[in-house]
């Protein structure tokens, strides 16, 4: 009963630069193939992960003992600024875009993105944005006012080195690239789905990418506007944020967090999609409550724009304002909680295979929940007043960004690596990496909750020898070094798999979605023919016609 649908040849030839070198560097640089650009995004992300991680290790050396003088305050300011900026804009953002760009066309049965050249442009402009940001080290000093770069510290009179100018230009370029890719993904999903691929058959990952596209389009303009205004302040002596001449420091905070809070969801929605796919496949069940997973994604995206003032409770906005944003911030816990239960429900009663990818997905559920709970504690205004600007915030945001975003991304990497490279990763080493990383991560950041509660302020280069401070910081630093060691295992793991890894079959995990239908790695043209789509597990229907979701009732199919 299943008949294949032939993919029509593109009407116009795919754009190419006409470069005639088979697999050399030039071919990668000139490529407009979504798979190559996706891999380039991931490589960029890996590179900056190592750089940003090294910066963090330097900071942890400085904080290992009380009154340490390893780094001076100036160097320390630059390090924490560059660490945060790098990790958010040049590790997490390119990583989610890399997975989105690589997988979206494959999952919807398309052979390319809607705008392949725009795709390449968006990557390269973000790439050069990162280089510009790092060029600031050579140009007289890196930015030093924190990743959120608060006014008036971002003004010339407080930071006269050119770092913050490079911050503005670098993030502006990367931001333009991100907006370009976000729009490109939306158009791709709307217009390039294969024949009969209804919206209600889209894989959860594609849904999350789709929602994320709108989040990007709506959030990044606020940042871009703030950046050009700051550049005008610094270069043309403008007065937007310069409190000394009538400007407003709060205006910067409003614009920045109007971007900054949604940005948290921008880097976490695609990982939500990733672990939805991973948990389904390794539990041998369809996702539990498909409409709720998708719907709560929409709810999160909408609420994301109504909570930014929770970053500004300490600025004295008044009780009405604070109460409103406290309430909206707590509200956002609901759709996130719904998702956690959907994933648990998917695992419930499944025959679970704990591969490395599944280990990361499972620990995501634990760590992200911790990050979510500490986040909700901030929504309570008096607690926020007590804990703001302490290490409690540092602990919280690392549980969200690492325990949430990065764990999801690593889960995705272990899951899709065989598809992307045609090689299997070593599961035994994978487990070593997982446990070292998870233990190191929790040692580092769990301690920081306590440090925050007992009053250690963040962004200060050293601390006095108060009871508990020395020991907790030492444990935190040792945990960070454990994570550093685990990264070496990770690098070796990747190297070994690429050099002599086992060949991967086309569908090693018995996956559900169309990317597992192609060869591993996929050819330049993803598909020649595709089976018809009758459920959100089209490949599972093809390989297991005896189960066949398309035969089930809607309630059964969608777990409602």
């Amino acid at each position, binding site marked *: 009963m299943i008949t294949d649908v032939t993919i029509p040849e593109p009407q116009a030839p795919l754009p190419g630069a006409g470069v005639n070198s088979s697999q050399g560097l030039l071919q990668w640089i000139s490529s407009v193939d979504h798979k190559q650009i996706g891999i380039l995004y991931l490589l960029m992300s890996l590179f900056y992960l190592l750089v940003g991680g090294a910066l963090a290790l330097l900071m942890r050396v400085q904080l290992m003992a009380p009154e340490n003088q390893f780094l001076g305050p100036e160097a320390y300011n630059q390090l924490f600024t560059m660490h945060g900026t790098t990790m958010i804009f040049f590790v997490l953002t390119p990583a989610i875009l890399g997975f989105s760009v690589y997988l979206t066309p494959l999952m919807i049965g398309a052979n390319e993105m*809607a*705008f392949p050249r725009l795709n390449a442009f968006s990557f390269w402009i973000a790439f050069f944005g990162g280089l510009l940001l790092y060029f600031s080290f050579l140009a007289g000093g890196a930015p030093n006012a924190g990743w959120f770069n608060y006014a008036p510290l971002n003004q010339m009179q407080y930071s006269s080195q050119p770092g913050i100018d490079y911050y503005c230009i670098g993030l502006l370029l990367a931001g333009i690239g991100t*907006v370009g890719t976000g*729009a*490109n993904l*939306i*158009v791709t999903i*709307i*217009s390039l789905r294969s024949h009969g691929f209804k919206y209600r058959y889209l894989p959860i990952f594609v849904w999350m990418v789709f929602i994320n596209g709108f989040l990007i*389009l*709506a959030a*990044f*303009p*606020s940042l*871009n*506007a*703030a950046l*050009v*205004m700051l550049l*005008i*302040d610094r270069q*043309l*002596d*403008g*007065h*937007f944020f310069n409190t000394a*001449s*009538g*400007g*407003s420091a709060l*205006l910067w905070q*409003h*614009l920045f967090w*109007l971007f900054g809070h949604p940005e948290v969801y921008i880097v976490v929605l695609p990982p939500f999609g990733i672990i939805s796919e991973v948990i389904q496949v390794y539990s041998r069940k369809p996702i539990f409550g498909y409409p709720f997973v998708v719907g709560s994604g929409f709810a999160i995206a909408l609420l994301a724009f109504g909570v930014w003032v929770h970053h500004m409770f300490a600025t004295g906005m008044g009780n009405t304002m604070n109460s409103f944003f406290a309430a909206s911030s707590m509200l956002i816990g609901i759709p996130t909680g719904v998702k956690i239960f959907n994933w648990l429900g998917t695992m419930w009663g499944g025959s679970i295979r704990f591969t490395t990818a599944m280990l990361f997905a499972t620990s995501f559920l634990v760590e992200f929940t911790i990050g979510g709970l500490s986040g909700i504690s901030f929504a309570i205004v008096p607690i926020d007043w007590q804990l703001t600007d302490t290490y409690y915030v540092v602990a919280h945001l690392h549980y969200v960004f690492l325990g949430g975003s990065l764990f999801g991304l690593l889960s995705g990497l272990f899951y899709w690596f065989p598809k992307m490279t045609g090689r299997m990763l070593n599961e035994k080493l994978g487990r070593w990496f997982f446990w070292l990383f998870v233990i190191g991560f929790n040692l580092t950041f769990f301690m920081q909750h306590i440090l925050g509660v007992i009053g250690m302020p963040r962004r200060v280069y050293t601390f006095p020898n108060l009871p508990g401070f020395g020991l907790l910081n030492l444990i935190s630093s040792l945990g960070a070094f454990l994570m550093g060691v685990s990264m070496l295992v990770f690098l070796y793991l990747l190297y070994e798999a690429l050099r002599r890894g086992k060949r991967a079959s086309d569908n090693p995990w018995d996956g559900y979605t169309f990317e597992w239908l192609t060869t591993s790695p996929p050819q330049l043209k993803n598909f020649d023919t595709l089976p018809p789509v009758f459920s959100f597990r089209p490949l599972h229907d093809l390989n297991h016609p005896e189960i066949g979701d398309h035969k089930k009732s809607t309630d059964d199919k969608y777990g409602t």
Partner: protein
Amino acid sequence: MESKLMMKLVVGSEAIFFLALMMGFVYFAYFPGFDPKSLALLDLTKTGAFTVLLLASSFTFWRAEISHRNGQIGSLKGWLAATVGLGVIFLFGQGMEYNHLLVNQLVVSKGTFATGFFTLTGFHGLHVFIGLIMLAVVLYLTFLGDFDRPQSSVISAVGIYWHFVDIVWVIVFTLVYILPHVVNMK
């Protein structure tokens, strides 16, 4: 269809960008109040006239789209050229105004009003300029015969952008040139 959808998304994102700049302008211009001396330097009638010309370019572009749909290449070229011309005149007018302000020592660093004014109108001018580049490319392609058939969606995609730039100007003009007089009269 894809290029039109793309343009709609880009325009939506750009709208938020301008909204942020406008918030910046309004925040300062309305709360500390306007500096009457800076305000007096703005020439409402002259800029008003250039505004009418920019709006006229939306009309000429609309005519160009209709000509394209009906396959009338000759009038397509004419209306497109008229649109480009009106856009250039608008930018010329903005240049004259900037020159007038600079001669009278109203520069970006002269207080929050000036900073907001130059940022807002400057970024709008930049968008007009980008629009003109796109229009010039479309006009050139028309002469090469790329739009002889009415199927292409490129012209309507560029149209979405051009109309957007015009609408933004209407709001900017109202915020910067008209409202202050109303507010100050009270």
